[in-house]
């Protein structure tokens, strides 16, 4: 199970290596900081930015819990509370979880498939800038006193212009539309990268589970996000231009908002959880010293969840009075979707039971995930059953359920992935002891916060209430939850402290500290700008454990897998991973940033009713795109299809 791709083992001689470095290096200038197209730098930025938004949304939650520590506490007004709980949910879902996981995807997918970058590096950069601007657009509304306050699902008629005057809900609709551009661009990029840029020999049945998860997630994004975008467009039009889509007095229908929202919203929760489950499938087997059990079953489960998730949305509407027949169907589908998740859980358990476990911090977070995700999963089955749902939806029981599946199902894997890939991301090891303390506090804090909420929900406490009366039996559970929130916050701060400490004084990391099996562990820590000096030939599901991989990058490797002249990577066929041709990767450019700024102008213009400003922003975007795609001056050799036209 050995592999190392230290420079002395590999095929390219010193001239080829020097040429690769020269073509791929991005000079450390200020311009290049804004103009980078390197997936590793962009991936890290996604992680940091999403982490900051997580901090803001988490601080909001601590404020909310402080207000709810006791009855009629009076620490936050209703006006403040309603904005904070809306921003907490909206930011956690849209500005933290998916971007954070897309950040992992950005950094890891090209590495795991043996490529040198994403298929569309400039689109990748554009996606990051749009994400940053959309996040700032939404968070800036908080100090401006105009933060969205309709809840993260913003039901009409509460959110129409009569019941929600002011800019709050315009920030919501426009902010999410803006963000949607980034998410869609990212999804297209992941799919094309995974289909076309895999190393030769990496057929579909040799693709790492994490990559399968990211690709399935991206397909879900492509079909779910447009429905949300439409919903937000219709709401914006109703609010700003008096259209009547949701106005029952003029023939509109309020339930349309809910249908469109949840047709997006349910797949969205799987969009959040699926890449995280992919992280578990990447991390767990390594600490069990074996490959994962049931690879085909897990791939099947991923695809099944992606498809079935589009057929369950009405379970969010069980109290709205739709026909019983439709409730029966959606309840059945919602129950069935448990099965693929169950398959994955038992595949992981089987991996642990037949492996040789080594306990390290990433593994601890995986265990934390297993415990909490199972709790969330069993309460989820309860909600699939209409009769029970109608009693318990919109209470703290559902708040408990979804925090177990989201914190358990997404945050624990994210933390596992953070500790696991920190060496690769930064070249440093995190301290094991501090990491274990962080895990302990996070695990205890999370359970102490959310377990009592099951009880207060069963005792009749509705959700989204800024306060509650004493004497109803809700007080002790709320106090416990608040204490838990503080413990959790300390644990998360320890995570941050650990990362910062690692960056400053952590042990320098070797290429492969954990003994991993996927290709990112065949690069240096952190990887060189070109990732692989020789793009490997893949022969199995565990390339780094397979000696044939190292042989393929050793002395005598084909020059057409080195591509030392210029910035190039390989295209291979979609199913078999058969070598097709080399393709040129673009240089650093400011155009993605300028295009994103143009979009920011568009959305600010729309928000503040400066429609000519918005039009000017749109013109800027169009002109920038025109210049971006304008063919560069090419020599006849460069225009030759054998060398390959450029990527986007």
């Amino acid at each position, binding site marked *: 199970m050995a592999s190392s791709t230290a420079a002395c083992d590999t095929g390219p001689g010193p001239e080829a290596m020097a040429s690769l470095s020269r073509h791929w290096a991005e000079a450390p200038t200020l311009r290049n900081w804004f103009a980078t197209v390197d997936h590793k730098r962009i991936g890290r930025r996604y992680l940091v930015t999403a982490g900051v938004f997580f901090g803001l949304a988490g601080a909001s939650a601590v404020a909310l819990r402080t207000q709810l520590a006791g009855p009629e506490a009076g620490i936050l007004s209703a006006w403040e509370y309603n904005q904070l709980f809306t921003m907490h949910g909206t930011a956690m879902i849209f500005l933290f979880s998916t971007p954070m996981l897309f950040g992992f995807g950005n950094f890891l997918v090209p590495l795991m498939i043996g490529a040198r970058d994403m*298929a*569309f590096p400039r689109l990748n950069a554009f996606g990051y800038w749009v994400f940053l601007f959309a996040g700032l657009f939404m968070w800036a509304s908080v100090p401006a006193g105009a933060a969205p306050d309709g809840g993260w699902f913003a039901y009409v008629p509460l959110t129409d212009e009569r019941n929600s005057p002011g800019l709050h809900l315009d920030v919501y609709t426009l902010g999410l539309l803006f963000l949607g551009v980034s998410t*869609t661009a990212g*999804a*297209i990029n992941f*799919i*094309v990268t995974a*289909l*076309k*840029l895999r190393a030769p020999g990496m057929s579909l049945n040799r693709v790492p589970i994490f990559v399968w998860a990211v690709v399935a997630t991206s397909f879900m994004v*492509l*079909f779910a*996000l*447009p*429905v949300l*975008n*439409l919903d937000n467009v*219709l709401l914006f*039009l109703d609010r700003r*231009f*008096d*259209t*009547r*889509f949701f*106005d029952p007095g*003029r*023939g*509109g*229908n309020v*339930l*349309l908002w809910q*249908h*469109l929202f949840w*047709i997006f919203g349910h797949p969205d929760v799987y969009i959040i959880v699926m890449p995280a489950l992919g992280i578990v499938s990447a991390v767990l087997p390594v600490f069990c010293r074996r490959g994962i059990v049931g690879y085909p079953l897990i791939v099947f489960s991923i695809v099944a969840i992606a498809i079935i998730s589009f057929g369950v949305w009405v379970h969010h509407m069980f109290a709205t009075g739709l026909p019983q027949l439709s409730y029966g169907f959606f309840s059945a589908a919602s129950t069935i979707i448990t099965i693929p998740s169950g398959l994955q859980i038992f595949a992981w358990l089987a991996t642990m039971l037949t492996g040789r476990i080594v306990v390290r911090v990433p593994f601890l977070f995986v265990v934390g995930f297993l415990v909490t995700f199972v709790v969330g999963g069993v309460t989820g089955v309860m909600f699939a059953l209409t009769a029970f749902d109608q009693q318990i939806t919109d209470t703290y029981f559902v708040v408990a359920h979804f925090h177990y599946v989201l914190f358990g199902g997404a945050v624990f894997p994210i933390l596992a992935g953070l500790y696991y890939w920190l060496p690769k991301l930064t070249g440093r090891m995190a301290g094991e002891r501090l990491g274990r303390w962080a895990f302990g506090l996070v695990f205890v804090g999370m359970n102490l916060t959310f377990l009592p909420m099951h009880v207060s929900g069963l005792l009749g406490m509705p959700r989204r209430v800024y306060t509650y009366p004493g004497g109803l039996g809700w007080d002790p559970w709320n106090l416990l939850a608040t204490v838990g929130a503080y413990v959790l916050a300390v644990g998360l701060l320890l995570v941050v402290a650990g990362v910062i400490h690692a960056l400053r004084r952590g042990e320098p990391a070797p290429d492969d500290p954990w003994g991993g099996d996927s290709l990112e562990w065949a690069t240096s820590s952190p990887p060189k700008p070109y990732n692989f000096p020789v793009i490997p030939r893949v022969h199995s599901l565990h390339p780094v454990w397979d000696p044939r991989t190292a042989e393929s990058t050793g002395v005598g490797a084909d020059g057409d897998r080195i591509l030392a002249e210029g910035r190039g990577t390989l*295209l291979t*066929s*979609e*199913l*078999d991973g*058969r070598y*097709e041709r080399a*393709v040129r990767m673009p240089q650093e450019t400011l155009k993605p940033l300028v295009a994103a700024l143009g979009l920011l102008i568009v959305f600010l213009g729309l928000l503040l009713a400066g429609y000519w400003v918005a039009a000017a922003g749109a013109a800027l975007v*169009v002109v920038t795109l*025109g210049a971006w*795609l*304008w*063919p560069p001056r*090419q020599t006849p050799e*460069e*225009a*030759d*299809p054998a060398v*390959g*036209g*450029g*990527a*986007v």
Partner: protein
Amino acid sequence: MTPDGIRTAFGPAGLTTEEPVGRSTAWWGVTLFVATEGTVFAALLGSYFYLRFQHGAPWPPDGIARPELLLPLIMTAVLVPSSLPVVWAESGIRRGRRWQLRAGLLATLAMGGTFLGLQGVEYHGLLREFTVTTNVYGSLFYVITTFHGAHVTVGLLMVCWLLAASLHDGSGARRREQVRVVAYYWHFVDAVWVAVLFTVYLSPRL
């Protein structure tokens, strides 16, 4: 085909493996983009039917007349065939004939522009009867057709860009890919129009 070639094509290796060359990244990019934009239209047209059947008879409501068919059918006759000059332009650039590319694109531009003009004429007539704020029918009618018209406009901008770029230079692989991307988008816009025609103009009469 030579005997050797036949043996290769029909031998075990030839029959059990896929084609040597798959699709390009640009092909995948535009196909996925069309899939996601198509979903927006599917949701929008689905919302039309949802709102209509929740509203019940009469439809259109409030005494608005059912949409006239003549102008939309002419618009269809102008827009849908405009996919043909695009195909012709694509085949031109594949053979290295830039004049064919430019002529095809210009024809598409003319037909697409005519379509938009006719839509403007239609609006001019209808706005006297109902606007986007009159009721949900008005909102649906104008938002659906304007949304489609915006996609046509973007398509025409892309065609103009290709025309400008063709004046520059290059008939290499990259240019051919770009023409194909625009062509796929244009075909998509035409297909969506057929769905809009059915939903907005024909279905009230069914």
